[in-house]
Each structure stands twice: as C-alpha cells, then as structure tokens.
C-alpha cells in the first residue's frame, strides 16, 4: 500500500449540523437561554427517585420530518438525531459527480434504549421473549447503517467507541481517509441518546448525585470535512494524541501531558462542563481559559465534544483556539481549531 499522498491537516470544515437540548441547528447551540430540565423516574426506585436531565424535544419539527423515513421507523432515537444533524451538514455541499463521501460516527453508549428494552424483556419475562425486532438495533453501528442508507454512502463507514476523546478519534479517522485519498469528503458525527440504564449508570458512578450540577443530555453533532487549504474559513488544524488514564491522579497526569503540548500563546476554550474533571480545567488552563458561547447543554459525552467544536468554530473571535476533549471515562485529548 502506498504512503499517504496528502498531509493529514488541516481539515476544512465545509458543513455543520447539530441536534441538542437547545434545539435543532447549529445556531441554537449559541443561545444563552437556559435549557429546560426534565425529570426521569429511576428504574430501580421509580416511586422515590427522579433524575434531572436535558433532553432533545421530541416534537422538534426537524425530527418529526424523519418519522416517515422507512429505515428510521424502528430505529433508536440516536439514529434520528444523527440523520438530522447529517442532513444539516450536507445541505450546502455541492457534491460533484463521483465524489466519494465517507462517514465516521462516534458513540459512547451506542443504542442503550433498544439494548435495555431487549435484555430487560428477557430478564423480566424469560428468554423466549427475546425480540428479533429489537436486537438488530442494539448494535453500535446500526444508526450508522440507517444514515448511510438514507444518504447513499456506500463507501467508508466506521463507528468508533469511547468517551469524549472518541470525537477526536473520529476526526482522526476522517483525516486519515482524506490523506490517503480514499474519500473526497467525510461526514464526522457524534451521537448519544438518554435511556434509564445510562442515567442509572451515571447515578451509580456518582456523576449524577444530589447537589451536583452534572446533567445527562442527548443529541448529535455533525461536521462535514475535506482536505483543507488557505481558503477555508473554518479549520481543524491538529488533533493532539490522546493520553489514557484510569483514575483521578492518572487523569490529571494525562491532562497535564496533553496541555504540555499546547502552543503557550493560544487561548484554551472551556469544555469540561460539569463533569468530574471540572477542577482540572481551571487548574491547568488558568488565565488562558475562555468560555464557549452558549448555555450549558448537559453532558452528552461524544455529542458534547461535537457541540463544543461547533461552538468554537462559530464563536465571535477569529484566530486559533485549543479545545480540550475531556474524556470522562478513559482518555483526554484536544483539538486545535481556527476561524479566519
């Protein structure tokens, strides 16, 4: 196999899309209006425990329009979030005949709604109640399959799995395909859906607890990227190598290693939200920390990393910025982004 004929970076951002608790469309991410919280009853103690969460409004007209799409009739909610975000990102792209489009989608929890329904049914009622309609939708790449079918993407398609750092890995996959000339443009996506099982997991891990500001959230983000040149107004200039960690002390060490590679002149965008890593951000970024534009959207893992990227690329300031990807589960990395 031949070596890459093109450099990995920069990546030009040529399309953007978002679905979040703030609404549909990238502009909604910058709204300063606080998002209305909703409550979900605990699966374990439904009478006494309710969890505050930030959900995507299921009545959004942009989402309702996809209800007629055959591939989405039985799909998990995250599939619809992703398809809508992808449609926004592709809307302005004039696809040349024969242009090769790839797609890579980052997930943290995949399709927990169907996984939980499928397995809970077998626990409560017995193995013979396993549903063949639900099982195929439990697979990580099933939303990606629906999306590829709807947009006719028959080439490269990966689902990548991980915490917020997986958004950086998805962008790295896109950069790799473009550098190798295996695609002309790549749709990079991130999506999460809320389900009782993930909310209970956040509570059991004590991320979601009484008095904490952490709010589970759901939605999707999309970037359409191509090989960059000087004419592009929004660029991904670099992805810093992720550093693994196992616990609090090693997470701080990993973050220090990532930050040590940063250009000392560049501002650092606040992206840690209200995760358990929040104290590290202030400690390491200090006076270089800049807020991102918009209200708190909650913790939606890979989707949050995507929303922060979109906000950084649409913020009022020109120039380059560093965006840490504060993975809450295993890795920390960062992006260098610029607006011209």
């Amino acid at each position, binding site marked *: *196999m*031949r*070596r*890459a004929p093109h450099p*990995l970076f920069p990546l030009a951002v040529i399309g953007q899309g978002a679905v979040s608790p703030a609404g549909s469309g990238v502009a909604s991410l910058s709204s300063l209006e606080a998002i209305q919280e909703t409550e979900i009853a605990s*699966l*374990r103690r439904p009478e006494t425990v309710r969890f505050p969460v930030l959900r995507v409004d299921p009545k959004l007209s942009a989402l309702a329009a996809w209800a007629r799409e055959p591939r989405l009739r039985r799909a998990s909610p995250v599939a619809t979030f992703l398809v809508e975000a992808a449609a926004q990102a592709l809307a302005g792209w004039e696809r040349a005949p024969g242009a090769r489009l790839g797609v890579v989608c980052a*997930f943290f929890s*995949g399709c927990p709604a169907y*996984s939980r329904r499928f*397995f*809970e049914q*077998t*626990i*409560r009622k*017995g*193995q*013979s109640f*396993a549903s*063949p309609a639900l*099982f195929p939708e*439990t697979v*990580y*790449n*099933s939303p*990606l*399959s629906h999306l*590829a079918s709807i947009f006719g993407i*028959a080439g*490269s*398609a*990966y*689902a*990548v*799995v*991980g*915490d917020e750092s*997986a958004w950086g*890995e998805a962008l*790295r*996959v896109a*950069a*790799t*395909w473009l*550098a*190798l000339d*295996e695609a002309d443009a790549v749709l990079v996506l991130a999506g999460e859906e809320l389900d*009782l*099982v993930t909310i*209970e997991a*956040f*509570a*059991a891990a004590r991320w979601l607890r009484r008095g904490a500001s952490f709010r589970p959230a759901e939605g999707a983000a999309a970037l359409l990227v191509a090989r960059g040149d000087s004419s592009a107004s929004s660029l991904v200039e670099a992805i810093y*190598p*992720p550093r*693994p960690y*196992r616990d609090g002390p090693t997470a701080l060490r990993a973050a220090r290693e990532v930050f040590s590679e940063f250009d000392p002149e560049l501002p650092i965008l606040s992206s840690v939200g209200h995760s358990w890593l929040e104290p590290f951000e202030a400690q390491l970024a200090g006076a270089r920390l800049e807020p991102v534009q918009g209200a708190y959207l909650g913790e939606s893992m890979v989707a949050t990393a995507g929303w922060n990227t979109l906000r950084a690329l649409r913020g009022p300031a020109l120039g380059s910025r560093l965006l840490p990807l504060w993975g809450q*589960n*295993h*890795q920390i990395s960062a992006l260098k982004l610029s607006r011209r």
Partner: protein
Amino acid sequence: MGAICALGPDLGSIWPSLIAGAEGSGPVTAFDVSDCRCRRAAEADSAWLGEVSSQSRRWSRASRLAIVAAREALDQAGLLGQPGADGLALSVATTAGGMLWGEDFLRGLVRQRGGGLLGPIARQQPPQQLLDLQAALSFRAGPTTIIGNACASGANAIGHAADLLLTGQAEIVLAGGYEAMSELLFLGFDCLQATSTTTCRPFDVGRDGLLLGEGAGFLVLETAAHAARRGVRGLASLAGYGHATDLHHLTQPSPDGTALVAAMRQAARRAGLAPETIGYVNAHGTATALNDGAEAAAYTTFFGSEAADRCRISSTKAATGHTLGAAGALEAVFTVRALETGQLPPQVGTVNALPEIASSLVSPRATAAPGLRCAASVNLGFGGANAALIFLAEDAR
C-alpha cells in the same frame, strides 16, 4: 500474533487443531439456555484465562480473553515488558466488549440491588477493557481507536492500523479484536433464528445457521523501517485493505454481494494486485442462509468463474464459532499463519456445498498449499459493514 478461541489458548495449539479439522462446539456453559432454540456454542476454556488475582478479579471475561491474545502477540514481537511497548497505538475491535458488565448492571437494576454494588460496574465500557489490557501487560498505550463495525470490526481495526502507519501517525500498532460470550448476544442471534440447531455448515446447501463463539486475535503491525531498526523480521505484510458499506438492509447483505466485491476490489487496488494473485481466502462464511449465498456470489464476481475455481476458500467459523468483533482479527491471524506454513484451514462441517463455490472449498484431505504467497481475509457485518485484507508472504514482498 496472538489468538485464543474455543480451540486453544494460543496460536501454537489452535493451528494444528484447525488444520486437523477440529470443531470447538460444545454445550453453552456461560448461562442458562434451556429456553433457547440453540444450546451450543464455541466457548474458550476458563482455565486458559489465567489465574484470578486481586487485580484481575474485576476484569471482565472479555478483557481476559483480550489480554491472553495480546500477550502472545507482544511476546512474539519482542515487546512484552519492553520499553518499546509504551506509546504503542491501539486499534481494537469489539461489538459487545462491555456487554457482560451491561448485563450485570441491568440485572442489578431490575432486581433493585443497592447503588453501591452497581457503582463499580457502571464505569465499565469497552475502553476500560483496554486499560485492563495495559495494566496486565505493563505498558501505557498511545492513541487508542475502538471500532464497532459489528462483525467486520476486527478486519477494520487491522486495516485502520495499517492506515495509521501509512499516514505517519504511528510506526507500530497493536491491532486486534476480542469478544466474550454474552447472553444478550446469544439470545439476539437465537431469536433471529440465525443460530444453527444442528451443525454449523458454511457454504452448504442445507446450512441452517451459525455457531456463536468467543475469543480474541491480535497482531503487531509496524513499518518495515521500524522493524529493521528493531532488528526483527516480519511474518507477512499487509498489502491491501478495503472497506465498503452495503445499503441493502440492516442485517441482510445484498444478494449479489456488491459491497464485498467493492471492498475486495479496493483492497486489491491498494495492494496493486490482480484478483488471480490471491491463492486463498479466509471467508466470512457464517453458515446463515443469506450471508453465504451473497458471499459466494461476490467471489464469482470478483475472481471470475475460472479464477474462483483456482482460488481456495474456507470459513473457519465452523471450528472456532463466530466470534463477532474478534472474528476479523482472529481470521487475519489464521490467514497470516497459512502464508507462513503453506497449510490451509479445511472447510469443516460442510457436506453438500453450494455449486458456485464447491470446487474452491478447502478439502480436509488437501490442506497443503506450498506455493501460497498471497491470501485474503474478508468479513461482513450487521449494518452493512464489509472489509477485506490482503496479505503477502514475507518473501513475496
């Protein structure tokens, strides 16, 4: 390279069994299957997973399978316990790596167990299993990519590792896949009636479904320059990688195998090789009605009917079981070993082969392939994922 599956705890024990036509099928022991159609699977012996220590007690079965195979691969590459392993990029596949934890967590919720008991489980995700792997094998990884492309993931992870080398993002990568037997997955395939209630018979006219398995496969991929600097000789070279998406259906391949043909053509193009160069294909061959027909059609299209007769083909899933996210990696390991040894895994289980592929299937009585220089491993998965890897014997580069 390293491997573990129902046939053995390392490649040294698996390979002779595979060549001898052994089958790893046995009664399911991991969970109760009394209400299932199918009651057999290809499980790895728990005794092969190492002693349970205070550290390994919290590791899942999936982690422990991955550790065994990765240890063997790192050891063969001269990296186990060596400083050179630090910073090693990881490109890894799983379809349900964290599912055993997920099952325990959901059972705990349904049975209203205390939150304190569930906390340690809640943090477990597939990436945590790769941290287990690093802890067990005493290295700290560099960039880690986990690919979840269903049953093609393992081949994708190896292909992605090669892409990292070709773009200068890494000089050496530990790539592979792992999967443990999971009740959710077993029930899923069982309720789809995709599992065999008789014998797994890939490419057989009367095939009635797959045999689920578990295992792991890992390979160390590095640039030739890096290998030369370390003074190590490669086992084979990865010459081509292709991947494509089947838009036909979420779980059913297009009957003409279009996406698999596209993946194989891309791999051949990147390798700079004509289809007739390929002497052996380790096929996906699940023994489900829809997969094997589409796959056979794809081989006829890709090779042409005459070349298809010359190329030899076998699916190792009747022996190892279908190891899902590990399958592509495990089968890539077998493909490389075929190039090293000039022996081909026979097609076991099959009695009455599909006519379009019958002459290509490797007979248990004719496993020798002394002139083999080029071989491919292909995989298909739910969601339309298709991937193809083409390897060259080390002396054929």
